[in-house]
């Protein structure tokens, strides 16, 4: 009878292998989901292309998202605003006809939210626009996207890094962002 623990380790090897393989599988599954199904590129009710509007035609972000300049929330343009141009432009496109249908029925378009902060966060677009931040810094290169994707996690660390680096006054005080 021996004292070495090696024989026992041999006996345990298959089980340990299974645990190890299972754990690796867990990691793969987790990150595969995050990588392939990030849910950061939802399908919108109308296939609005930022690449066309903001990219090709170089319409400034704040032209449609007017409120970002003066309000905490950036706001989504109303159908009314869409029709401001599309009453004349590209009226026969099927997508625009869809928009026109919403307009005629006086219905809002149920856009799916992409950049969603928790309810306990106070993020005033106004201040960030006033500080001269480009929209792309948080939202990514939206002007190149046909369908908008959330590029950054929009988590606390991201805010802190920027607030630290750009020396925002009391930028890392909790009450600056948490309500």
């Amino acid at each position, binding site marked *: 009878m021996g*004292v*070495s623990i090696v024989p026992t380790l041999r006996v345990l090897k298959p089980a340990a292998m299974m645990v190890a393989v299972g754990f690796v599988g867990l990691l793969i599954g987790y990150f595969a989901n995050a990588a392939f199904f990030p849910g950061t590129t939802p399908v919108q009710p109308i296939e609005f292309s930022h690449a066309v509007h903001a990219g090709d035609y170089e319409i400034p972000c704040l032209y449609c998202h007017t409120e970002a300049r003066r309000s905490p929330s950036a706001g989504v343009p109303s159908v009314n605003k869409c029709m401001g141009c599309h009453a004349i432009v590209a009226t026969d496109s099927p997508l625009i006809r869809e928009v026109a249908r919403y307009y005629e029925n006086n219905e809002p378009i149920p856009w799916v939210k992409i950049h969603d902060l928790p309810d306990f966060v106070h993020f005033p677009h106004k201040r960030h626009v006033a500080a001269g931040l480009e929209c792309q810094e948080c939202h990514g290169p939206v002007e190149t996207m046909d369908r908008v994707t959330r590029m950054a996690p929009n988590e606390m660390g991201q805010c802190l890094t920027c607030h630290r680096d750009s020396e925002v006054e009391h930028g890392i005080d909790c009450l600056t962002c948490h309500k």
Partner: protein
Amino acid sequence: MARSNALGLFGGPKAALAAAGKLRGEGFESLDLISPIPLHGVEEVLGKKKSAIKRFTFFGAILGGLGGFTLAAGTAVLYLHPTGGRPIITFPPFLIITYEMTILLGILATVLGFLISARLPVFRERIYVPESAVDKFAVNVACDAEADFKRATEILREAGAEEVTEIAPGGGQ
């Protein structure tokens, strides 16, 4: 001849210690006593042993203390949260953290020191007699030559060993 071991099994600690003392007197340096209980007086027979454990404990504790204070003070400094009108680096509470971390790392280092100095865990088989975990006291002598082995066996027998076996080096029983 290759090195081999003589292993004598004794019924009691006195006899085993006596055998060990005699063997040592005869110049056998590589002696192991395997016993079910720690033996008193083994140091008088086999000479004082030194262990590095205390150094592990000491440096572990020091590391823990420094680490504890650094942890507390560093956390306080890296994200300033002034509380209760106290300074950012406050000694009384941080000393508690230091104290606890000192002990924690002291303990962990002691364990590490124990494992290293006692050469545990065992991966390669070593000489062992299961009876020595019950009520037998074994004296294991490493012998370089055949003559030594015989002499050792003799001494063990004389000292009252109930049984003496030869064990090939590195092998089990």
